[in-house]
């Protein structure tokens, strides 16, 4: 049963990365969109693209936490004790990001919009970096078993963590750009080209980071590296092929196919991480089965997952379909947009 819960956990990470990650990535493009005049149109697209969905996407993170602490409580204690600093930064960053995004939409004065926008954008980069660094710390075996604290600094400032952080930011930006190309076609067609160029650049960036990553992992996270180059190798290859395919489609301006391939590329590398780490939750010190909570708890978690399939997934699909059809246009906060935005 612990295997089933582990699979659920991994799936939750994948879904969070693919949906929530892209919302963070949109913040990256918000950050780099330039001054208020130059950046207005891309920011508009970004706001309309993630506005209705980011909160729902964000809940996947809470799901990950809940599964972790109910099903693998001892590992959760180890992780939070060891990775106290990046987790705290991520938590504060999430507050700053969510609140600023909501505030920015609710005010009209340009000065405040800029301040909230800056807070939103900076924290959108900070949070995925921390998440990636946390993943790196876990994957490179720096979190000890037994509810013990590992090294409070080196556990997240180390080659694998830096790789994880940078890769998370880049992959999030990449996914976001690919989605934004698609969304921009509906909202502001000229912006599609704007984001397409950025998507191509981000794809190249992620590719380069991935290549560098091979060497980093070979030297710093041998268990993970061995896994990735053996049983998880098909997934790595799948990811690379899809990434290349998406790049080709982006260059040839076929955003719909590019979106699908980009999602598979990111998802398969995360699944690859899970497969490479198997059977360890904390590599080489704690396996999933050893960390697992009693059967009753696991059963309860699986029941919740089934209920989520029955209740949440249809709602989630409904939200996305309505959003994609343009039926959730705006909150309509701007009462006098043209005048006051000035």
């Amino acid at each position, binding site marked *: 049963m612990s295997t089933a819960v582990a699979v659920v956990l991994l799936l939750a990470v994948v879904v969070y990365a693919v949906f929530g990650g892209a919302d963070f990535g949109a913040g990256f493009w918000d950050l780099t969109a330039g001054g208020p005049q130059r950046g207005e149109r891309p920011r508009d697209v970004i706001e309309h693209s993630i506005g209705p*969905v980011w909160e729902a996407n964000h809940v996947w993170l809470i799901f990950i936490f*809940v599964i972790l602490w*109910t099903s693998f409580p001892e590992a*959760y204690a180890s992780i939070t*004790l060891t990775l106290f600093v990046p987790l705290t930064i991520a938590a504060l960053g999430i507050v700053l990001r969510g609140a600023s995004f909501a505030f920015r939409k609710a005010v009209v004065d340009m000065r405040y919009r800029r301040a909230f926008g800056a807070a939103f954008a900076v924290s959108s980069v900070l949070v995925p970096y921390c998440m990636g660094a946390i993943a790196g710390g876990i994957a490179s075996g720096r979190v000890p078993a037994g509810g013990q604290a590992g090294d409070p600094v080196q556990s997240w400032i180390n080659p694998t963590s830096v790789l994880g952080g940078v890769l998370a930011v880049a992959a999030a930006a990449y996914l976001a750009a690919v989605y934004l190309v698609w969304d921009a076609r509906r909202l502001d067609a000229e912006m599609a080209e704007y984001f397409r160029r950025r998507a191509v650049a981000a794809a190249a960036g992620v590719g380069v980071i991935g290549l560098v990553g091979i060497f980093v992992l070979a030297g710093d996270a041998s268990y993970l590296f061995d896994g990735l180059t053996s049983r998880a190798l098909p997934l790595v290859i799948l990811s690379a092929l899809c990434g290349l395919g998406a790049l080709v489609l982006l260059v040839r301006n076929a955003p719909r196919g590019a979106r699908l391939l980009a999602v598979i590329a990111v998802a398969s590398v995360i699944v690859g991480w899970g497969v490479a780490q198997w059977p360890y939750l904390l590599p080489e010190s704690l396996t999933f089965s050893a960390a697992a909570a009693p059967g009753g708890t696991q059963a309860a978690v699986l029941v919740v997952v089934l209920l989520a399939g029955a*209740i949440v997934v249809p709602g989630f699909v409904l939200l996305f379909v309505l959003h994609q059809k343009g039926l959730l246009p705006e909150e309509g906060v701007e009462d006098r947009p043209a005048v006051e935005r000035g």
Partner: protein
Amino acid sequence: MTATLSALTAIVFVNPVPWARAQMAFTLAFHIILVPLGVSWAFMTLIANYRGLRHQDRAALVLAQRWSKFMAVTFAVGAVTGTVLTFEFGLLWPRFMGQWGEAFGIPFAFEGLFFFTEAIFIAIYIFGWRRLKPWAHFWTGVPIVLAGIFGSISVVAANAWMNAPSGFVLDSDGRVIEVDPIQVIFNDSMPLQAAHMLIAAYLVGGFLVASVYATGMLRGRRDRYHYLGFVIAFSVGAVATPIQIGVGDLLARWVYSNQPVKFAAIELVPTTSSDVPETLLGHLNEDGTVSGGIPIPGLASWLSDPSTGRATVVQGLDTVPPDQRPTVRQTNIVHLCWDIMVGLGTLLFLLSVWYAVSWIFRRRMPRSKWFLRAAAVSGVLAVITMEAGWVVTEVGRQPWIVYGHMKVEDAVTANTGVWITFFAVVVLYALVGTTTILVLRGMSRRFRTAEDFIDHDTPYGPSQPEVPAGAEEAIG
């Protein structure tokens, strides 16, 4: 001198217990203000929305739409501050989560489910005003209300489990080896505690929203829009108040039977006795005597079990060793907060009676300026009442984090840097809190200047034909 000072500083800053406790208390105290809005505001919005659609009431529709825009802000802040709590369970209390996560965590798995539903439908509802069909749009609001109800019940189930831990089997080392999820969720304390918090959410949400419109009316804005905003919200609060007092009474009796030490702290009972007075205010001294305050003879005994009246025996604090009961300071906090909760709750009840009497006998809300003044502060009072009640249950449980099983000091993180995160959190939350209020105020001002509802502002699209304003029921 300097050496002692630096040693003292080192101890204060290194010991994570007070800092972790302060940070948890602070973030929860902040989050709990947003909870009522998340849970009950959607319900009030749907009342306005329903009225708007059913009776072609344009002011009600505009009200519903604006409320949903405010909700977008409070929900976002609530969502992220709630997320911080999920981080903090691990960051501040890793030993608690490591030992008890498999039991304590289960209600949160269900809460996640409901929170998810809430986040999805709140997005559809908030963003769907213009392009969805009116009644379809209305129905997308209903899951928000249900998810809010079941979500808050789930969270409180987890807290109730800390008061009445059950549904697990320990091995000889004290590790959880078996878990019965049903027993964990439906623990002994859960039904009453969940009811008490859920009703509190409606009570506080109602009074909080109503107080804004009462203030507006006092400033002379006596149009139908303000009237509806007040009546819908205040009615919700006024209906919730008497129910809340009944549930609170049952819960107090549950505490009397199941957490006698907490009850002794609430009622300020140092030694076991019968004919215990209900002491209003007053405090417990280090030597175990009670001084100050106004004792009402025998009332605490009588309330604890009316069937035995003043002869009811109330267990004293001294029945357990000092390290298993709240400290004198904590006891005084619990007792004071209890008095505040009951006192302010009674005031809110009287205000609700005033409102109800006026409706019953005059078929309208009270016209008195004093009523509106009282209503204008009812929101803040309701928040204080709720916070006080929450302090009673949390501080009254001390020194336990899991009643009878684990103490707070054994649950805390080993990280000595918690004092830094505490200050960071306080600064960030102060900023976010202030900004939330300013942003909400700014929105309301902007809505007001756009008083002659421009097309852009009309719900259900510009194509909607002009609906005549409803009958002029407004006061004044």
